[in-house]
């Protein structure tokens, strides 16, 4: 099973590469959706990235804006389905 810190690092890097146009100082706790960085469309691709990367399936009802609102929460969600 992947290490939780390693996973957070991977997810943060994906979010930075994908959504942050400049050095935006993102951290594990930066609000992504409520902070306006990631919209609901982009959440779909983030979910797909996680599913392919960690070979899991996250049910749609669990992929809520709240559950995806920061890297820590996302990593916790992924861990549940590993």
């Amino acid at each position, binding site marked *: 099973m992947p290490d939780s810190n390693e996973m957070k690092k991977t997810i943060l890097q994906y979010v930075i590469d994908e959504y942050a*146009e400049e050095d935006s100082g993102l951290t594990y706790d930066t609000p992504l959706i409520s902070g306006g960085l990631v919209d609901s*469309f*982009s959440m*779909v*691709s983030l979910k*797909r*990235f996680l599913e*392919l990367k960690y070979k899991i399936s996250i049910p749609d009802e669990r992929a809520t804006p709240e559950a995806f609102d920061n890297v820590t929460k996302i990593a916790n969600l992924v861990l549940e389905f590993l």
Partner: protein
Amino acid sequence: MGYSEQTKKTYTDQLDAIVNAGLFKQERFIHSSQAADIEVEFPAGSVTKKVINICANNYLGLSNHPEVIKAVHEGLDTRGYGMSSVRFICGTQDIHRELERRMTEFLGTEDTILFPSCMDANAGVFEAILNQDDVIISDRLVHASLGDGIRLCSAMHDTFKHSNMEHLEEKLRLHADKRLKVVVNDGVYSMDGDMARVDELVELCEKYDAMLLIDESHASGFIGKTGRGTPEHFGVHGKVDIITTTFGKALGGASGGCVSGRKEIVQMCRQKARPYLFSNTIAPVVISGVLKVLDLLNESTELRDKLEQNTLLWRKLLTEAGFIIKEGTTPIVPVMLFNAKLAQDVSRDLYSEGIYAIGFFFPVVPNGQARIRTQISASHNTNHLLKAIDRFIKVGRKYEILGKTKEEIIERYGQ
């Protein structure tokens, strides 16, 4: 009556918030035809003012062209005013089908279906041709109407960074397992005036077996050597699977739009696209006007050539005057001011000086990217442009922004 005080307050609170944020949109009443010189009543109730219009989508100056008006009069006499029907009941005249055939020829596609607007074309096309097994991958800056159409469709939606082909390729790989893939772009982006890299898009889509959709609303009629649009400009005319475009800009400026492309896709739209099925047919007079526009464009490239010359001159004049503009070649020329209030102040002062140009700021453009968007037309003559630059310089001097860098403007006015 269920419109209680509380219900009313729900709306007045929201409207107040829009006003307080400085985002309340007000119409300006034009007392003349659409042209380079127009007569405007603004604010409402004031005496009308003659101004030079540099914010219309009237790229070819055809909105008020005498031959188009004549054709519309003739069309009115022979085909009447309205059809009182959707297309598939009793709303299709011979001229509707003729326009579809002519647009197919013009765009180098297989077939075309008319919609009441390009907004409707974009709203209807995705749901008609895709389902939950499919994916749409769109540029992050595509027009709002494409975003709305994508939302109405059950296909998965992903985005790629604006004009970033490497990022698009990553997304095409990521979604390789999907049944159908559609890559979505504007041909010309309306806020920055830049063009999609259509040749590279065609290549990538072929490589990954994805369809390519391009909204050519700000390109049809004048981009490319004969005005066929961005595919012609990039040497891939006839290779784009789906083109949506409007008759509400360069192609006469009245209304209406279409989806043009692969035969089966057009057929699917005719069976399933809801804005086609449940909205009235385009008025016959509009069809007559667009048919004449196509005649004019087939006869000569004079108007698009004039537009190209005007655009070159306008970009040169602004640059030499010391304004910061978005580089490019299209007649959409954004004059960058970065600060929202500055953009509003400059727009207001230009209007006082007889120049009608609108400021754009967040949320229409990204925060810190406020600008005056100017749009050049073939109906402008050199005197219009020289007068306009003279007034721009006068206002630019007042705000001391000429020859200043982005950082200097931001330092003085904020972002």
